[in-house]
């Protein structure tokens, strides 16, 4: 279960959405749940989750929660952080 915070259509946010969906499609096919939140439209969500930096990816389940910020251009790093390396290989 993943949550991606983006800021409207800023270049980094657009890139992050593209990078993440491509990555997840190749790694875990459709066995994931992704919620995309636009902090420009929902600043209260950004506040409650302390999302100051965008884009920001929260992994909530399974296992240890983790956060990755940035446009997620380094696919290997993102997968490692999400604990998905084994699945990808």
């Amino acid at each position, binding site marked *: 279960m993943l949550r991606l*915070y983006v*800021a*409207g259509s*800023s270049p*980094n*946010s657009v*890139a*992050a959405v593209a*990078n993440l969906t491509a990555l997840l499609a190749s790694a875990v096919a459709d066995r994931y749940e992704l919620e995309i939140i636009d*902090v*420009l439209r929902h*600043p*209260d969500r*950004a*506040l409650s989750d*302390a*999302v*100051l*930096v*965008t*884009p*920001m*990816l929260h992994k909530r389940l399974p296992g*240890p*929660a*983790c*956060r*990755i*910020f*940035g*446009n*997620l*251009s*380094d696919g290997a*790093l*993102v997968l490692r*952080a999400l604990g998905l390396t084994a699945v990808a290989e």
Partner: protein
Amino acid sequence: MRTGIAGFDGLLGGGLPRDRTTLVVGGPGCGKSLFALESLVNGARKFAEPGIFVAFEESGKHVIANSASFGWDLPRLMKKDLAFVDARLPHAVVHGGDFDLLGLLAIVDAKRKELGARRVVLDGVDILLGFLNDPIAERREMYRLSEWLSDQKLTSIITCKSDENGRLMAREGYMQFLSDCVVVLQHKVVGSLPLRLMRVTKCRGLAHVTGEVPFAITTSGLKVVSSGVTEAQPVSNQKVSSGIGRFDSMLSGGYFRGASVLISGSSGTAKSTLAGGFIEAAAARGEPCLYATFDESAGQVVRNMASVGIHLAKHLESGVLQIMSERKVEKSPVEHVARLMEMVERHKVRCLVVDPVSALTASGAGPITEELVVRLLDYARARGVTLLCTSLLTGAGDHLEETASGVSTMADTWIHVSYVVKNGERNRALTIVKSRGVGHSNQVRELVLSNEGVTLADVYSAGGDVLMGTMRWQKESEGRQARSLKKRDAERKGREAQLAVAETNAHIATLRHELAGREAAVLEFSADATKAAAEVQDRGADERRLRRGDAESPSARKRSS
């Protein structure tokens, strides 16, 4: 934009540049967050400008708890004029590519719209930058942030840690260029006492005070030790009584209102008593006044003054007089002065006594203290407060008339009290060293303390020597004796003359008596004579009758007559 921080806005000629970014840098515990928070609180409380506090370092709850002692009532302000954004960053975060700070902007923007905020604080931005750990991106984002804040008409204060000397980490150096105004705070220890300094190193488009200015954290917030007013009070020609009648006439009427008076002298020369007289007179006129002492407790002051006929207790009760008693070792001189200024402002003090001002300079806190006293004098003058400082001179007797040079040159009136030891006695001699703009007596007077009060006695000079104490008394009593002798003499002579008058009167009475007697005798004798004549006539007639003689003959008549 006015921060409302006591004494600060004056340094920048009115406040921080509006709609711009101000960077506040300083080492740990130097008051950065407090500075930022207080300017937000003042904005909300005094200037109807709501604000947002973004805390990267502490939780909002901590910030609120830490500032509870300042009496700002944050929970009430937070209902509509103040928002805290808890922006602590999570620890386990992976840096995965290029990023921006749009999340932060979205949060601030939402709060801005909600409150109608005009002020924003980003507290501990170094934490955010450390978290991002990407020098190029963070620089770009900070520029974007500051531009955005300015576009939204938000005046912002960004705090950032530095080393002890106010230098930023090399990587954060660009922050100084990004900001329109930079305030460096320092906290150091000088001679075992803390010293806080503030310096405006940069302020685009505003003339500002560039030097280091001391400040303190008091019970109501930050207090910058500066005159705090941009326009000084007009100079007054009014006179304020010194509390001692004869002394007023020496000063042709008293001290000038708003003047600074320095009373110097060694220990026990009745400096405090002179100060007490001044303050009692002020309180009796109903002027709010403050007596700050670093030597005694308030109770001691009242008791000791009462012993020389200066009664402060009733003025203390009515609230006209405040006594501020501080132990000089407990706080730094800057804190003392800050507290003093706060009291002056709170009670609208018109007459102020600092007893002794040397407690501030002799604290071993280095050269800053002398400057501090000069600042205090300047502050009082700018506000039209009549300030009387006593200054202790170490050493006794024929000490040179020396005192902290800065103070004595600044002071408008300088009174020196010294001991004159002669003929086994120690007497107090008072001189007016200088008094600007006032014709003053050049005479040395003896200061006499009794339980009736303080008086100045004339000093006799005899053979080039000034006579005091017993010698003066002797001279005086000689004079008195001579006078009384003369008086007695006159009285005696008067009595003698009266006696003579009485004697003469008695004499007159006796003579009158005698006269009356003699007059009576005259009358008696003349009566006898008539009677005798009558008898002779009768006898002649009888004889004629007896002799049956002729009618009365002329010869017979002649004989009998």
